[in-house]
């Protein structure tokens, strides 16, 4: 089984962090995985995105022209990636910042999750919106096991911020349960 996802949003939303987490989880599950971040001269504080490919076989391209799924955390990213998603693919959008009405495409499996709101109001930290979205994405696609994500958190969170691990677990869980409830 091979799947892939592009995750995109503003810089600072933690996009690269969730891409890393997903990748490491897949690795821990013994699978092949590649992670490819945007790099270079784009304006800082502008946009950030990464591509993760998961597979049971050796992976060819770590870059994907037509992704099977997208996690979209802000408006500009929707404009950019919406047309690219494969027919019938998964699209998770952050409804707190992205207007679901703009999606248009009817062939996609859309999940509009108010990630910022959940993060702020339920989890207790606006910073964790992306983590919420990742939880939702993973519930949707079964890309990895939730438990593996939890287990891998220490590998992407530096010692200094260790104490926030439980909060991150919560964020993942909230995203997961939102997705389950909006299947």
């Amino acid at each position: 089984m091979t799947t892939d996802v592009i995750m995109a949003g503003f810089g600072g939303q933690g996009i690269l962090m969730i891409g890393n987490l997903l990748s490491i989880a897949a690795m821990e599950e013994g699978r092949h995985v590649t992670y490819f971040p945007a790099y270079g001269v784009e304006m800082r504080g502008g946009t950030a995105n990464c591509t993760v490919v998961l597979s049971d076989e050796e992976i060819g391209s770590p870059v994907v022209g037509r992704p099977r799924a997208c996690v979209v955390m802000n408006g500009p990213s929707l404009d950019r990636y919406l047309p690219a998603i494969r027919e019938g693919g998964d699209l998770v959008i952050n409804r707190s910042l992205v207007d679901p009405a703009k999606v248009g495409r009817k062939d996609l499996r859309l999940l509009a999750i108010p990630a910022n709101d959940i993060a702020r109001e339920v989890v207790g930290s606006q910073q964790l919106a992306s983590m919420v979205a990742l939880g939702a994405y993973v519930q949707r696609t079964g890309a990895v096991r939730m438990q593996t994500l939890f287990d891998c958190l220490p590998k992407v969170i530096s010692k200094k911020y260790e104490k926030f691990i439980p909060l991150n677990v919560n964020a993942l869980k909230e995203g997961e349960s939102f997705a389950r409830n909006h299947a």
Partner: protein
Amino acid sequence: MQEAAKKGAAAAPKGRIEIDFERCKACELCVPACPKNCIEMGRRINAGGFAAAVFARPEDCTGCAICAESCPDVCIEVWR
């Protein structure tokens, strides 16, 4: 706001600025630059993801253009 409008009516503003909402990157440099403290950071987020500056206290504006001179993104136009 109403209060501000009143105040403005009292001491008539000598100038006016316009901040380009979409171009503003919310750097805040114009805020302390204005000697009359007319500018504040807003809440509304533009397409760039920035909560742009707003002309909060027009009634005090002297049209001195210091804000405009300070804006690295040339978002501010000034009239007098």
